[in-house]
């Protein structure tokens, strides 16, 4: 008894000194300067997304705060258009009150109109990043759009990873009939070109954030499944799993308590990789009108509007979305690379 407690004490001591695989990965990640910088940028974006999701910023993105197509503040207001003046007619007014059928009621209407007040709203001539064709603030829209696009990308990647990991674990661990069945499902899903599969799902789902997440996750889990399956097949016959089996660990316990932590880095890197590709897909789906609903804004719907604005010379919405998306996606991709290097040092420098 004392020997057992002794050895577990040793294990704990070893853990606290080395800190385990995650701490080691964190240490490696910290030394990667590009990785830390990109993680910082991703972090800033996530904070903005959180603020937008809790309606602390950009909650009033739908309000028309500026003049239509207000230029960015840096450029200054649009030059006044020369509207021309109509010369006031000369000569006496002709009195039409004897033949105008509405004439008796003018006084009454004027009386009633006094009950209402017209509020003069001064609309901003310029906005920080300009305005769209309705005069909505592009800055607020780009933040709200970031919220939608990033949340969709993250949620879809999480769901796809869950599906892929669960099916991959079942297929890799059990093999045999279960494995064959899941392999067949995998073959079916990969036989249809992915864009067609996405369109087929889009045809039957309604529009909205949840539907986009479902479409992307249901069509995007196959790659993760394949990798996790291979990992489980490899680990299933390893000694530590056999030992766990020998002392009576159940199948579920072996799958999720013993093997899963050892392959979770693969799932994490895949999750990260899929976030980027799903954000890009969401943008394209929303652009085509198959994505988020009409009362929502995402980077894709903004690009759809920006296309028509560009021809009229209003380039700021396009520039804002492009810059925002490029920064986030680049940072996330670099972060993913750093994460992969940190979690799997063997792979470093292969690419």
């Amino acid at each position: 008894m004392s020997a057992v407690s002794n050895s577990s004490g040793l294990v704990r001591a070893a853990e606290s000194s080395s800190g385990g695989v995650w701490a080691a990965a964190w240490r490696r990640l910290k030394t990667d300067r590009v990785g830390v910088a990109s993680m910082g940028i991703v972090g800033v974006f996530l904070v903005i997304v959180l603020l937008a999701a809790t309606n602390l910023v950009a909650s009033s993105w739908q309000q028309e705060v500026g003049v239509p197509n207000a230029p960015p503040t840096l450029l200054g207001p649009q030059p006044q258009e020369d509207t021309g003046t109509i010369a006031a007619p000369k000569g006496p007014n002709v009195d039409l009150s004897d033949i105008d059928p509405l004439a008796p009621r003018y006084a009454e209407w004027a009386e009633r109109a006094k009950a209402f007040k017209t509020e003069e709203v001064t609309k901003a001539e310029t906005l920080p990043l300009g305005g769209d064709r309705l005069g909505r603030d592009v800055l607020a829209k780009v933040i709200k759009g970031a919220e939608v696009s990033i949340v969709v990308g993250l949620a879809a990647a999480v769901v796809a990873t869950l599906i892929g990991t669960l099916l991959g674990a079942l297929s890799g661990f059990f093999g045999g009939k279960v494995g064959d069945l899941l392999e067949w499902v995998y073959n079916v899903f990969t036989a249809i070109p992915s864009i067609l599969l996405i369109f087929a799902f889009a045809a039957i789902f309604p529009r909205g954030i949840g539907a986009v997440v479902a479409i992307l996750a249901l069509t995007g889990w196959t790659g993760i499944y394949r990798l996790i399956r291979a990992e489980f097949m490899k680990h299933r016959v390893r000694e530590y799993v056999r030992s766990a089996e020998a002392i009576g660990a159940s199948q579920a316990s072996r799958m999720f308590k013993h093997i899963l932590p050892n392959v979770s880095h693969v799932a994490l890197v895949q999750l990260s990789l899929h976030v980027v590709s799903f954000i890009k897909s969401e943008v394209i789906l929303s652009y085509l009108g198959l994505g988020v609903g009409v009362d929502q804004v995402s980077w894709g719907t903004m690009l759809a509007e920006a296309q028509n604005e560009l021809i009229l010379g209003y380039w700021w919405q396009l520039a804002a979305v492009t810059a925002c998306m490029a920064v986030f996606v680049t940072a996330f991709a670099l972060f993913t690379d750093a994460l992969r290097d940190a979690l799997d040092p063997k792979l470093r420098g292969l690419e």
Partner: protein
Amino acid sequence: MAAYLIRRLWQMIPTLLGVVLLVFFLFKYFGSDPAIILGGLNASPEQIESIREQLGLNKPVWEQLWIFIQQIVTFDWGKSWATNESVANLFATRLPATLTVTVPILILEVALAIPFALAVATVRGSLTDRTVMVCTTVAVSISLLVYVILAQYLFAFRLGWFPVQGWTSSHWTNLTTYAPLPILVAVAVSMAPQIRLYRSFFLDEIGHDYVRTARAKGMTEGTVLLKHVLRNAMIPILTNVSVLLPGVLVGSFLIEVFFSIPGLGRELLLAVNRGDYPVIQAFAIYLAALTMTVNLLVDVLYKFVDPRVVLK
């Protein structure tokens, strides 16, 4: 070889059956009721009922599935719900436009990416290499939409080098007048990821022992790269091309939408927007079959590229 082909074709059957089942049940149980889509907003319950009767929606599910399979095997999909055009005719008339754009794209992007990637790989670690890698990373992160919007605006609308969009019934005019800008944009956009990928293939090969041996024998760098490295790297490149090949059929749907090219991709998108189920189902099933056939052909091609490959 014949035995191999027969076995591979035999293996395709369960997968194809799965595709058919997936498409059938997806639209059957998750899609909206076809009778309501077809009937429109003002249809009376009797009209909807009669459409259901006509389409055989009141029959048991297995009987509907059997009709569905018969349609696939006989290539008879009936007519598009939206335009009443037969689906087979839709395929035949839209395919040439798609191929006019996608075939040159595929040829150009592979033919251009290989020399670029090889050049970048030979100067690995240098400033040029790092600059190209950073540029491609940033270029990949910008949405395809932005490139298309900007290129159409700049080259067609502003500079007037190309028509903004258009299409005629003459293949030659299409290829020389209307297709160049879409092709140019698509090739330029796909260059960045292709160069990254091919560069990693080349680097992988350059690290092998046989390259060192070849250099030690006193071969010129050109011979080493073009005769040894290139030929060995052709295998992963070929695999990648086989991944791209099915895209030749619908892959450029965004380009088609932007430039109003009456191809398969644009037709598919229209079908999705109209809820035109027969068109979507036919596309999904036939393109899946085509994709599998292409994959089989590529596997056979390996044999010719690399004599070491044994088909079993």
